[in-house]
């Protein structure tokens, strides 16, 4: 009963934010929603499969550029742009992931970093497709039931329900045969293989799923900001997605949301301190990693578990 009440209050607060928060705060929350979607893929790879991926910025970029190109050059409707971005991202993830995911540990992390760098170079050099450093502008805003989502206040009501839906779907996945296989693979790959899990195929599947999430977030981003350029898809973005997963706590699904809020809200909150804000942010990161090694979500889950364990058993 209490849980439902808390959920209802949280829902009310969420729904009310655009009414009382400033435009810049709502804009920040929209970005947190976008990063939740893209970061969920990285988080799932890291926390449930033990795969460190720095390539999410490439899939985020592919989604954004596909949407931008389809909408502005080809005049396709938005759903077609989304589908093109996700298909292309999924295809690239499959083609790259199949050989690369035979690596593991640091080697795999470095290979995905190389992919992020190559992607960024290609986004810059293929200016016939991406507009190079000039980017692509004039991407029309999304419209839903006749309402143009052309402001942060309106887009907020699209991005967060989409993020919530995806979090729910990933929760389903986690508590299923595939989810158990993923976590088994993370903890003891040899033993997982003995259980009949095709380790390589499973890694590739999850990598493709993660790429689809990156592309979806990229497409939403393109429609939201109406302009895309290479600056948004560099290695720093890839590191940002990984940071989100680590800080949020990659083993918990809710951690992704907390991580996304942290990496969007914290730099903004610290900007009031002037030039030193980047140093302060780095300090926060170090403290978070030292004191919350399992991330915000992990710390929260641990606290809840301890409270449950301490609760006296029900009589009878």
């Amino acid at each position: 009963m209490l849980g439902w009440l808390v959920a209802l209050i949280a829902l009310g607060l969420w729904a009310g934010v655009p009414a009382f928060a400033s435009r810049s705060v709502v804009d920040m929350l929209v970005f947190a929603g976008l990063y939740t979607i893209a970061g969920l893929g990285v988080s799932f790879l890291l926390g449930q499969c033990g795969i460190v991926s720095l390539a999410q910025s490439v899939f985020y970029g592919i989604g954004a550029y596909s949407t931008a190109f389809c909408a502005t050059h080809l005049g396709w409707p938005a759903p077609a742009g989304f589908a093109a971005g996700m298909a292309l991202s999924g295809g690239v993830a499959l083609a790259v992931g199949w050989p690369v995911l035979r690596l593991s540990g640091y080697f795999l992390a470095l290979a995905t970093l190389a992919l992020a760098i190559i992607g960024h170079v290609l986004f810059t050099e293929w200016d016939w497709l991406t507009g190079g450093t000039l980017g692509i502008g004039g991407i029309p805003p999304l419209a839903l039931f006749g309402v143009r989502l052309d402001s942060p206040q309106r887009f907020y009501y699209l991005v967060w329900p989409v993020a919530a839906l995806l979090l729910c779907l990933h929760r389903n996945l986690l508590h299923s045969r595939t989810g158990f296989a993923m976590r088994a693979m993370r903890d003891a790959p040899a033993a997982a293989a003995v259980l009949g899990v095709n380790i390589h195929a499973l890694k590739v599947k999850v990598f493709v799923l993660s790429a689809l999430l990156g592309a979806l977030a990229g497409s939403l981003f393109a429609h939201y900001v109406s302009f895309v350029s290479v600056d948004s898809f560099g290695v720093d973005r890839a590191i940002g997605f990984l940071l989100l997963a680590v800080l949020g706590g990659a083993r918990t699904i809710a951690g992704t949301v907390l991580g996304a809020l942290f990496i969007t809200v914290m730099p903004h909150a610290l900007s009031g301190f002037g030039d030193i804000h980047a140093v302060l942010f780095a300090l926060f990161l170090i403290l978070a990693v030292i004191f919350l090694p399992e991330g915000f979500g992990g710390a929260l889950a641990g606290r809840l578990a301890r409270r449950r364990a301490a609760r006296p058993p029900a009589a009878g």
Partner: protein
Amino acid sequence: MNVGDILEVRGVSRSFSGLRVLNGVSFAVEQGSITGLIGPNGAGKSTLFNIVSGFLEADAGAVVYAGMQISRLSVQRRSRLGLVRSFQTPQVFAHLSVRENLMAGCYKHTRSGMLANLLGTPGSRTELARMQREAQSACERFGLTEVSERPAGKLPAGQQRLVELARACIGRPRLLCLDEPSSGLNSEEVAQLMQSLQRLNREGMSILLVSHDMELVTVASVVHVLCFGEIIASGPLERIKAHPRVREAYLGT
């Protein structure tokens, strides 16, 4: 291969950097038996075990399982055919609870795909409920009910062994290969393990036991002795113990 054999290893050889670890090893595991494979440290037991289970390829020779050449099959294909193994160091899924470890053991007996799992289709949910039932039943059979919600990685070594055994037995494999299953166990836990193995064997499971623990191999009806990459003796344990080459290998007499 005799009709009654579940596994036959034929002339298997394997070298590492020019050092021959296995030299034309041949032996068989009879269907429904507990077969022991013993040998002193460095005899090549683990290498042979890895070749049987698919973690290593032999340089020469063949592994035949249930009449089928499986030398080129992957670990997971062998597992799906009913050949499963345990590890010398228990390989539990440390961050999963005991119950979840056993649910993961149902993987090869379930079919739903990633999309169905993502969408949480009714079929996927029914399957999950079945996995839960099977895990619960395995917990009861192996005496793990009390620790079923504890993370497997936090259990003592003996219980981790039991979790690994229970997980391997879900779905009733035809051939259970155990690598040094008594390592790290106290005498009471070894006795419990022996009882579990005998019970599984009575239920029809063939077991290949790799060990250097002479007490544990008393459960085996046939024992093969591996020494410096060659089988030097085969037969019932009592006869093996009296074999001069075995005495020489173990006792140096």
